[in-house]
């Protein structure tokens, strides 16, 4: 009786969440193996089971494969930069005390509260060719001639760098905030003991701080990796996938194939692949976060 009543409290929220997530997911899983085929009896195309044909079409498409490597490359580079910079900033902030440091830390966490698409759109004014903040400053302060200024818009490499910079700008603060919270929850007795043993500076960092921080670091990396692989808003707002389709992310392709070309089979196959990758890394993150919770809050 008691357990049943407990579920009554949970059920509305659980049903709502699962209806919106599981319903569409099942739709995708099924449609990944379906494709329209002409049915002579009915005189019109009908959905038929086609096995792995949609997946085969995906693997045969060079543009789509390019977007896979591009997205994975951007995501991994972004995560490494975010975590390294975030850790450096968190260690610096951790050694500071007082009001100024707290205010500065608060300011630093502001980017992650902003809509990514607004940040990307704003970045178009920073990366604009002749008049943007970056190229304008390069020309004015460093005297870079116009023909040698980075071409943020029409060069695929520089466009990718711009997207990467926006991603890193927005999410390093997240790594900073989480790692700082992790540092602050470390037991101070260990530091007293290590100091008595003569540890200081780098050896303290290497042998006490970082090992203690490891569970938090692992969770941060996994969460950021999962989020980065979903990359959509920033390329959409900043480059629209251009020049050409050079910076069109994997998620942007799914949207275009599914809702512009209405090739639901191919879009579903691609969605299913993304889901499998994210679900496996996500499960790992959840499992590790459960462990980290017992470390940081125990």
């Amino acid at each position, binding site marked *: 009786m008691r*357990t049943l*009543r407990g579920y009554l*409290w*949970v059920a*509305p*929220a*659980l049903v*709502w969440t*699962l209806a*919106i*997530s599981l319903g*569409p*997911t099942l*739709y*995708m899983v099924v449609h990944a193996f379906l494709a329209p085929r002409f049915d002579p009896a009915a005189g019109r195309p009908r959905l038929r089971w086609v096995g792995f044909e949609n997946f085969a079409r995906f693997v045969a498409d060079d543009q789509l494969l390019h977007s896979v490597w591009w997205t994975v490359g951007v995501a991994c580079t972004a995560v490494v930069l975010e975590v390294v910079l975030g850790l450096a*900033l968190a260690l*610096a902030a951790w*050694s*500071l005390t007082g009001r100024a*440091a707290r205010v500065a830390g608060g300011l*630093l*966490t*502001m980017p992650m*509260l*902003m*809509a990514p*698409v*607004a940040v*990307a*759109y704003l970045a*178009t*004014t920073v990366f*604009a*060719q*002749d008049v*943007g*903040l970056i190229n*304008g400053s390069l020309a*004015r302060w460093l005297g870079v001639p116009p023909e040698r200024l980075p071409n943020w*818009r029409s060069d695929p490499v520089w466009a990718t760098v711009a997207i990467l910079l926006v991603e890193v700008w927005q999410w390093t603060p997240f790594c900073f*905030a989480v790692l700082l*919270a992790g540092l602050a929850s470390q037991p101070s007795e260990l530091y007293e003991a290590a100091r008595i043993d003569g540890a200081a500076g780098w050896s303290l960092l290497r042998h006490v701080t970082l090992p203690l921080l490891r569970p*938090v670091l692992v*969770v941060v990396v996994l*969460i950021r990796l999962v989020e980065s*692989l979903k990359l*959509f808003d920033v390329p959409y*707002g900043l480059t629209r996938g251009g020049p050409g389709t050079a910076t069109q992310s994997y*998620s942007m392709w799914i*949207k275009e194939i599914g*809702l512009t070309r209405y090739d*639901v089979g191919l879009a579903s196959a691609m*969605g299913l692949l993304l*889901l499998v990758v994210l679900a496996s890394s996500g*499960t790992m*993150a*959840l499992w590790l*976060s*459960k462990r980290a919770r017992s470390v*940081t809050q125990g």
Partner: protein
Amino acid sequence: MAQQTGSFSHTGLTPQRWLAAVGFYLAVGVWIIVPGCWTVAQAFKQPRDVHSLRWIPWLEYQPTLASWRETLADPQLRRTLRNSVIVSVGATTLALLLGCPAAYALARFRLRPLGAEDTLLVFLSQRFLPPVVVAVPLALMAQRVGLYDRLVALIVVHTAFVLPLVVLITRSAFLDVPPELEQAARLDGCTMVGAFVRVALPLAAPGVAAAGLIAFGFSWNEFVAALMLTQYRAQTLPLFVASSEDTWGLDMGRVAVRCLIAVLPPLAAGVAVQRFFIRGLTLGAVKG
């Protein structure tokens, strides 16, 4: 921000601390202050000053409200702003109404066969679903049943998107309330629902409010589902911000104004509840 007990904090002003302080404040300056000032300055410039690196108002350029006036008079901005408010407030309200009882049950009751921790994991795992995977089928279904480009559809979807965060944050708020108070209320004749509404909920109010503000910010910033489920009538503010004509190097004043309008509400909400925000984003791994 959490209390800081640094590894160097007992040793006075060592060279490392100087280096850390200089590096940290310099980083904050480059990271936040420079782009922030640039954006605000752009929003108050006249069109002829927008394409120049002028920073100091009155000395280097004559500030004006022209971009603001123009943007705020745009009917599509007003429509999308109103839609964003309706969707975010609607989704937040629904998520709190559904999420608080669930979180309370997960904090207090013994659930079987799936325990409270595992039920929580079911909620949390939703955060890993890529929004496109959910939104493309939802858009196809919505088009079929006539919910495409309707605010209702967006509210329903956003509610599901923010529910996991609401459950996670309010559950830890309920866990911080001592259960003895509710037991006393039950002994005095309160029903279970009464104990929840009259005792637990008021005591957990700060956590519930924080969850609400975070849910509001998430819904406000959400882009992928809003892009696929709306076309014109039900567009939200992030879509308006992104949908505009080609702007590279053009009309930078209006770009800045639009982005400031889109970015300010969640900033205001988020600064108030930072530590809860961290807890939510790390799936509860870090308390913040």
